[in-house]
């Protein structure tokens, strides 16, 4: 019984085995309407390929950018997206909710 196709953990494991830098982004809290529940994950490789989701597609672009920086620099980052944040509104969390996404690098 294989995991679901596109399972972020399975794909992250494959990328790491292939020698790619990998980061994981995880929804850690939500307020109001948010399209993906807490625990939803996105795996990102050093080239910006990604599988999974942390929203309905509104903030993935910004998260992938941060993930690529974390892959290069290390460390962790807690991203906050919501209507109260002009920058976040600019990346388009149009559903009106608020979501926090934790980004971490997967050590090789």
């Amino acid at each position: 019984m294989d995991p679901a196709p596109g399972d972020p953990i399975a794909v992250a494991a494959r990328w790491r085995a292939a020698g790619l830098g990998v980061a994981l982004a995880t929804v850690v809290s939500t307020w109001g309407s948010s399209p993906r529940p807490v625990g939803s994950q996105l795996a990102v490789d050093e080239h910006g390929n990604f599988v999974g989701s942390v929203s309905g597609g509104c903030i993935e672009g910004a998260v992938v950018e941060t993930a690529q920086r974390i892959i290069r620099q290390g460390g962790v980052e807690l991203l906050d997206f919501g209507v109260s944040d002009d920058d976040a509104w600019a990346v388009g969390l149009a559903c009106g909710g608020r979501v926090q996404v934790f980004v971490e690098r997967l050590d090789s």
Partner: protein
Amino acid sequence: MKAALFDAIVAAGRRKRPVATVTDLNDGAQALVTADSVTGSLSLDAAQIAESRAMLAGEASGLLREAASPGGDGPRLFVHVYALPRRLVIVGAVHIAQALAPMARLAGYAVQIIDPRGAFATHARFPDCDLQVAWPDDVLRNSPPDSGTAIAVLTHDPKIDDPALRVACPGPAFYIGALGSRRTHAKRRERLAAEGLTAAQLDRIHAPIGLAIAARSPAEIAVSILAEITAVRRGGVPVAGPQAASATPAAAS
């Protein structure tokens, strides 16, 4: 995330063991929590471990309550539960199963297909599936359904369907559905009752299988079945028992 911790998550998935990570969102320190062990660079007190294990058991990711005080600057600890995928057992390596298996995998189910007829249960027809060329009652006795298991009985042949239902109905599977018209199902109930199944056990069978969306093709019927499984799992709509007479049941025979 440390390589060893990630490897442990991957290994736990392979060994069918649920695990949880606890992450300090300030600095990324992490612990891996199972029902009987705690490892990693983040140290947790007894109350934090107990709360993490309760979330693991309840398959609920989220912030630890005591660490999530509003406006507090203390460590915010996030528990991520890596639950096992739900299991879907399809009895009958039939055309509908060929459509249902990949759909269910996309929806996160680990799919197993059982059919004693070797001509149907071939890897050419079901690539990448757990395929059991065996009698369903034998398979279900060897790996019993649990409360995270759905069972779709699709052969339309009592010789194969009935043994599967005899084992499934008294068990804890969260969904049991069987293909066939209301008349077919009434006869099936009589046969299974004669073999000792109770009315309450027989009432657990969703038949005709699938939500009434007037499905016709095998793929459409697969959609109706997966929709019904989803509704039962998520408590979406009341779907137990015979469906409205005005609706065309999926897969009437």
